[in-house]
């Protein structure tokens, strides 16, 4: 987590790295902190290591799973008994059909043949 903050955080967001293994020539070291790029293209011009890229799954999954990993289990907003996370970690509540809904929509008839 510390590494993530240290190496991917830029003035205007979190950027992917071109080299996870050798950071020496990176954005953070080569660029004085007081120089603030006004948009991503400027950041790219200074950068040899940070890519001008933030993937959608960073917000959808990376941060969400980090949050869920380190949260107190008692404060977990989505315990696995009540929620399902789909492919890009969008949360869906687990629900059951009420008896009235089952009657109204003829649920399970094809399975049991009696209800």
């Amino acid at each position: 987590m510390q590494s993530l903050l240290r190496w991917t955080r830029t003035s205007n967001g979190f950027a992917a790295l071109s080299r996870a293994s050798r950071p020496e020539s990176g954005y953070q070291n080569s660029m004085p902190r007081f120089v603030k790029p006004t948009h991503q293209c400027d950041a790219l011009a200074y950068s040899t290591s940070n890519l001008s890229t933030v993937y959608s799954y960073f917000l959808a999954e990376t941060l969400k799973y980090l949050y869920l990993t380190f949260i107190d289990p008692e404060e977990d907003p989505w315990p696995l008994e009540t929620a399902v996370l789909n492919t890009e970690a969008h949360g869906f509540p687990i629900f059951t059909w009420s008896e009235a809904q089952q009657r109204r929509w003829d649920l399970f008839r094809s399975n049991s043949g009696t209800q």
Partner: protein
Amino acid sequence: MFGAISQLVFVSPHRHLIYITDINEHSVTGQFEHLSCFFPALLALGNSTLSSLTPNEIELHQMAALGLAESCWLLYKDTKTGLGPEDVLFDPFKPGDMQSGRFIEHYDAWVAAGRRGAGPIGFNPPPKPMESRLYLAQHRDYSVQHREYNLRPEVSCWALSTLSGSLTFSRLSRQCMSCGRRQKIPSGVNETGK
């Protein structure tokens, strides 16, 4: 699921890292992708939700999940940034023989020998992060293929610590939690870049 574990999960020659790779046109590639680190979470989820699994299957899935998740964590710890590369290429267990070193063979041998210790090869003792920062493939058992860090999520870290109620993933979740504690040290980590 047994096919994936028996055909695709391998052990590295010296550090005994457990990794999952691809088979392309009948040949084992040795490539271990960051994306494959979802697989331990899949095994853990299956272990905790599928009632049809036998105790032997649960044990095998748990061993494979723990070993794979450990390797995923080590790929982070091995780098200087502390962030894992996109994919790496593992050396074969026996030089030149990509078919050697399947995890299932080591697992079977461990079972046949009476389940001694914490687990099959790769668990006794568990692999350690590289202390030297020199980037030598022969010491690490792998070479980095794509060096990018693409901000990818670590679902397994979350899943293994969340599902630990039904499984014994305590060691790994402790590692994850220690990462979390370090994060809380008030040190202005984002500012220095050094």
